[in-house]
């Protein structure tokens, strides 16, 4: 690879009020490479990406692009120079068409500065689609609101191409994509790269970083830590650089011997997601049952209907001998259920309420008397915060002042106070950094050893494999396979969750019963 420097980051610092997000960061970006910017949440990787693209302005230092010092105060100025960014929250207008979104601010598409040249827009959009060499089969006239997240992201990337971007920055692009869509995105990135576009890929997902990048730059606490050639590095080394200490194997296998006591029995449960499929499953005391399936396989819907969050059609859910199907949620919780929902921000936490009130929400709703015992609450909250090592200033601060990992620990604390027998965890490590992941894994292990049973949904295979005693694989709304941890492997699970249902049927997959 020719190592022409395309962009030089020189002594960049950035302060947000009293918080220093970046401290004297310098490194080069070479023309034609795919560079991964890596670090835990809050490490400063996204901030730097946004400074390069003109979203933020640096407090000190300078960016030299193509031999010229940049001073872009807006993304529009950066685009004009050839730098585009695709943010996690897309900058698309939902009720305009794809073509209109792509050429929204392009002067050439308007006659006398007012009238839109519709035909030209559509043609140019199609030409851009061709340039990507990926066929998404999109109609340029389709409204953006009708597109999936992956398709919208594609439109953002095409929009970047429309301004002839030489450098495209993708900020955590895979966080909302399914595995298949990630493959698609990577193919697209490689095509762009082959066409001479330099890419910056901001991520904290190790496997993706190793799949797609040429070079890795690691940040920690706002400081540049290390740069390395991807091919000459490995996961251990990268984790060490990110976390700043040796952490051992992230996915060290932990299994336990569940006790011989049936805690949960789900029989012939049917929900609205897959009306023809009756679900049967069971859970013993101290067992971790992993549930794996691709996005859209019905795993979250199944969890929610077992918990009672959504109405079911029929069937029975018996926890410790008590029937909770069709009963109010409060009864399910008082019978021993708890659930950490998938979407922490919209379903799990009261974001602008205090840490204290979040920790006590479930307890207050299910255990407390009408008058709160504030002293006792304070004591218990402090104890949980210590146990779970929640890093925070005051329990009176709003929970959205915490990092993702600490927010998730608050969500855990909320349920630990009501001491559930069966705790449902839907993507418990989504959007949290590696350090916090470790702690969540240790907590799951500890809970199981103490006799709590866990239903664990995750889209990260290594996570499911490391933590589960048994694994159920879901595919198109059905539980297609049950695997013991001793026989499970990534390949086997991927096989069952992607195969055509008829094929699986012929090779003798049971439907989750035993």
């Amino acid at each position, binding site marked *: 690879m020719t190592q022409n420097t395309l962009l030089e980051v020189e002594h960049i610092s950035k302060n947000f009020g009293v918080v220093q997000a970046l401290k004297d960061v310098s490194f080069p970006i070479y023309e034609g490479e795919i560079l991964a910017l890596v670090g835990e949440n809050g490490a400063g990787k996204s901030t730097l990406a946004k400074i390069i693209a003109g979203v933020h302005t640096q407090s000190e230092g300078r960016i030299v692009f193509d031999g010229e010092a940049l001073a872009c105060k807006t993304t529009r100025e950066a685009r004009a120079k050839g730098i585009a960014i695709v943010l996690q929250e897309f900058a698309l207008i939902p009720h305009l068409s794809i073509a209109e979104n792509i050429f929204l601010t392009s002067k050439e598409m308007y006659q006398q500065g007012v009238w839109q040249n519709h035909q030209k827009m559509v043609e140019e959009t199609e030409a851009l689609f061709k340039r990507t060499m990926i066929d998404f089969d999109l109609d340029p006239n389709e409204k953006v609101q009708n597109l999936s997240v992956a398709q919208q992201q594609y439109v953002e990337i095409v929009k970047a191409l429309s301004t002839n971007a030489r450098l495209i920055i993708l900020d955590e692009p895979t966080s909302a994509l399914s595995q298949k869509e990630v493959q698609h995105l990577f193919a697209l990135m490689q095509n762009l790269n082959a066409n001479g576009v330099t890419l910056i890929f901001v991520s904290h997902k190790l496997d993706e970083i190793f799949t797609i990048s040429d070079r890795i730059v690691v940040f920690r606490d706002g400081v540049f830590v290390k740069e390395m050639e991807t091919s000459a590095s490995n996961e251990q080394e990268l984790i060490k650089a990110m976390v700043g200490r040796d952490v051992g194997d992230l996915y060290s296998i932990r299994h336990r011997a569940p006790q011989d006591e049936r805690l949960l029995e789900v029989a012939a449960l049917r929900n609205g997601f897959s009306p023809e499929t009756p679900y049967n499953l069971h859970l013993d005391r101290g067992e971790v049952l992993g549930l794996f399936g691709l996005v859209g396989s019905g795993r979250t819907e199944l969890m929610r209907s077992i918990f009672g969050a959504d109405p079911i059609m029929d069937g029975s859910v018996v926890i410790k001998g008590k029937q909770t199907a069709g009963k109010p*949620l409060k009864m399910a919780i008082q019978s021993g259920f708890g659930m950490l929902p998938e979407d922490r921000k919209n379903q799990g936490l009261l974001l602008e*309420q205090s840490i204290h*009130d979040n920790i006590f*929400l479930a307890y207050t*709703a299910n255990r407390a008397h009408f008058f709160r015992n504030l002293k006792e609450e304070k004591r218990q909250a402090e104890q949980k915060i210590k146990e779970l090592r929640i890093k*925070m*200033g*005051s329990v009176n601060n709003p929970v959205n*002042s915490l*990092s993702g990992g600490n927010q998730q620990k608050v969500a855990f604390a909320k349920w630990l106070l009501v001491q559930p027998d069966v705790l449902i965890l839907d993507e418990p490590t989504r959007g949290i950094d590696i350090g916090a992941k470790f702690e969540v894994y240790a907590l799951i292990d500890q809970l199981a050893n103490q006799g709590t049973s866990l239903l664990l949904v995750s889209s990260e295979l290594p996570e499911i494999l490391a933590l589960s005693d048994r694994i159920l694989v879901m595919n198109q709304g059905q539980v297609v396979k049950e695997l013991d941890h001793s026989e499970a492997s990534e390949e086997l699970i991927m096989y069952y969750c992607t195969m055509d249902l008829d094929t699986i049927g012929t090779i003798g997959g049971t439907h989750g019963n035993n």
Partner: protein
Amino acid sequence: MGTIEMDKTKHTRMGGLHNFRSEYSVEIMMFLVFLLLCALISVLTPRFLSAGNIRNLFWQATTVGIIAIGQTLIILTAGIDLSVGGIMAISAMLGGLVMSNTSLGAGITTVLLTGLGVGVLNGVLVSYARLAPFIVTLGTLSITQSLTYVITDGSSITGLPAGYRFFGYQRVFGLPLYTIVLIGLFILGHIMLKKTKLGRFLYAIGSNEEASRLAGVNVKFNKMIAYSITGLLCAIAALILTSRLGAIDPDTGSGIELDTIAAVVIGGASMSGGKGSLVGTLIGVFFITVLHNGLNLIGVSPFWQGSAVGAVIIISVLLDSMLRSR
């Protein structure tokens, strides 16, 4: 993350006073502005601080204050109640009719039950029928006001029994009963919000309804309670107001929904729920009362007073958002 965390630890060390200051930062700010307003008016007109005028202020704050308590509970859940004036009118009017034909006791009971009844109706429609609070209460406002005119054919009820004067004129320990009721209800409400389950739930629901539900909070029931309490408070306010006036007019309470909402907002509550307090609402109620009263004393035309109140609402929200983005 290091810098952020260190910064926050520093705050905790300052202890309880700091907690109070951070929990009530908006309220404290509004209270200071309120004191400034009082000082300004008392410089412009010495009559403002006379005993007579202060009694007057407390009377003027009573009706709005009592209802603003309920409005706060509802706004905390991210709802709104536009029907409060209508509830006052219909409960007073029905009560007055019953009173004229039977006994004082039956009349008072009717007032309270009618208020509670319309509140429950609002609550059921909002919670269980999942209708938008704005629409539901706009509807019940219209219905209650119209029914009030229907049942009396648009006329007032006068000649109320002598015993009815109790609510408006009774004094306890030298203070008017209604002032004690106002302050008592604020204290009760404050304790309810801070120290009981119901209070926590109202904040939780307004902050994130789905998260509250998944944690086992009975969202529908608790929302219904907030509307029901408000209905009852409207009836109490109606009793006091009509007792003091000595007559029940069909337009009793008209326009009070805006004053109560304004008071809650000036007190720092967020219309999107989860944020606010009765301490703030109490300040908001007196802010509006003093503003009207002061402008009257100074001799500002009533036509201008609406502009003043409007400006205060907008400025207080502006202050709040500036305070938060800091």
